[in-house]
């Protein structure tokens, strides 16, 4: 009997400490048939189980073509993620997934892509950036706007430098609190939208981060003439089952874990920003 609730065992192949509170685990299913069958879209997530402690939803950050492993970048925010931060290569976790609907990568082929992210909101979008870079010819201009609260929070600094070197790729960084060595802008990431030469009819925007940041971004994008149907975002809610069953992640009639986490703005416009909904 197939059971969507029971995890498969995965072993940690590598562990990278990205920042004092953020780490990445590279994982591989111990059962090669499970690993071979594992396919996902950028923006989808797995439920990761720490033995005896708990299970949390974590997005998959690598490219779907990486078929022998998958990466999870995790920030320590609670008891389970804190416990996971002590895992080392060779340790094992449980994995269920992938779950949810990812970014509309097929649908947006040929378009300019604007990515706006805040904080560790970058994780679900990093998979998209990697996806775009690997299939550069399929998409138009790429604009990456990454915001952080504090300049020291930015992870993957070198990667942004590498991406910025690519043809038709712009990378703009913003920190609410800048340091001396900070090369980006000081202020809100959403303020960067105004500085862009946006071809509003050709662009799709992919947003990820705190809801207030995304709301501000939507307002700025609309001002730039973008249509609601061209704005996509990834929502964060309490996700436990991953299959639209346990009820925690609901926003209006949508189950974020199953119907999302990626939504088109016009699907959720009625509820987006409704406080406490």
């Amino acid at each position, binding site marked *: 009997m197939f059971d969507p609730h029971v995890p498969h065992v995965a072993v940690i192949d590598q562990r990278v400490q990205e920042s004092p509170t953020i780490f990445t685990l590279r994982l591989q299913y111990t059962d090669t048939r499970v690993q071979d069958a594992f396919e996902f879209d950028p923006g989808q997530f797995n439920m990761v189980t720490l033995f005896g*402690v708990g299970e949390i939803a974590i997005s998959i950050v690598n490219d779907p073509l990486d078929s022998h492993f998958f990466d999870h970048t995790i920030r320590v925010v609670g*008891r389970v993620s*804190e*416990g996971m931060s002590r895992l080392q290569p060779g340790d094992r976790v449980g994995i269920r997934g992938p779950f949810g609907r990812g970014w509309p990568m097929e649908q947006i082929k040929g378009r300019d892509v604007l990515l706006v992210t805040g904080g560790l909101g970058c994780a679900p979008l990093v998979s998209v950036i990697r996806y775009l870079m690997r299939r550069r010819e399929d998409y138009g201009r790429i604009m990456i706007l990454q915001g952080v609260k504090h300049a020291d929070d930015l992870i993957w600094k070198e990667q942004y430098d590498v991406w910025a070197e690519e043809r038709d790729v712009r990378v703009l960084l913003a920190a609410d609190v800048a340091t001396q060595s900070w090369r980006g802008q000081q202020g809100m990431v959403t303020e960067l939208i105004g500085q862009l030469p946006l071809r509003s009819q050709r662009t799709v925007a992919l947003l990820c981060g705190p809801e207030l940041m995304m709301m501000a971004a939507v307002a700025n994008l609309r001002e730039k003439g973008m249509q609601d149907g061209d704005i996509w975002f990834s929502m964060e809610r309490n996700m436990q089952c991953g299959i639209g069953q346990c009820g925690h992640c609901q926003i209006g009639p949508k189950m974020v874990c199953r119907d999302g986490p990626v939504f088109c703005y016009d699907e959720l416009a009625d509820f987006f920003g409704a406080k406490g909904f």
Partner: protein
Amino acid sequence: MNGQKPKLAVHKFSSCDGCQLALLNLGETLLQLPELVEIVHFAEAGPNAPDATVDIALVEGSISTPEDVHRIRMVREKSRVLVTIGACATAGGLQALANFADRDAWMSAIYPNPELIDTLRTSSAISGHVRVDCELHGCPVSSRQVVSALRELLNGVMPREETQPVCVECKRRGVICTLVSKGEPCMGPVTLSGCGALCPAAGRGCYGCYGPAERVNDPSLSNRFVDLGLDRQASARRFHFIANQAPAFKAAGSRLKDESHE
């Protein structure tokens, strides 16, 4: 905790020892415990080394004497993780009811030589004096919760906190609501779960020994108590009972007392 077994201490302050007894009543599980931790101090059970440095300290009882104040600071310094167990340690306990009374009058009414008694003017929760890492509520504490908290600490994570009211446990167990089916005032809707709905399962209303749940709508519940024939003074005593120093219950009881005088 490299290699060596973590060290555990059980300290007692002002209390009836009932929470320590709840641990002793664990039976077989208690016998398993020494395989996982080194019990260096648990006077009620034998080991006696109150000054030892430990990984986990379980603290029973409230702070009600100057000596308690001094000693709890020492315990804090010597313990990596400090867990308070039971209503006295987490919410002042039954003895804290004296905080609402004229202590001097009571002392001279009860003791022939009250001047020999050296106590503070209040009995208070441990968390009012030192930093507490985790609180386990109840009178007595649930031994199942203590074991599960120890297990989590041994796993290197903080124990999961309960936030739901007793009603949630009643309904999961299929216990019939005493308030709705008998009209008996019950503190379940405002009281933290963890007991497994012990009292309602025995057919009586919850008396709130676990202290406040995450949300305490005391005006609404006490209005209901009044409808059921409990006056405001009596309702106040439901809040000013075992967990009387827990802020939400303390405020609720005081408000009801004030209203009953109006």
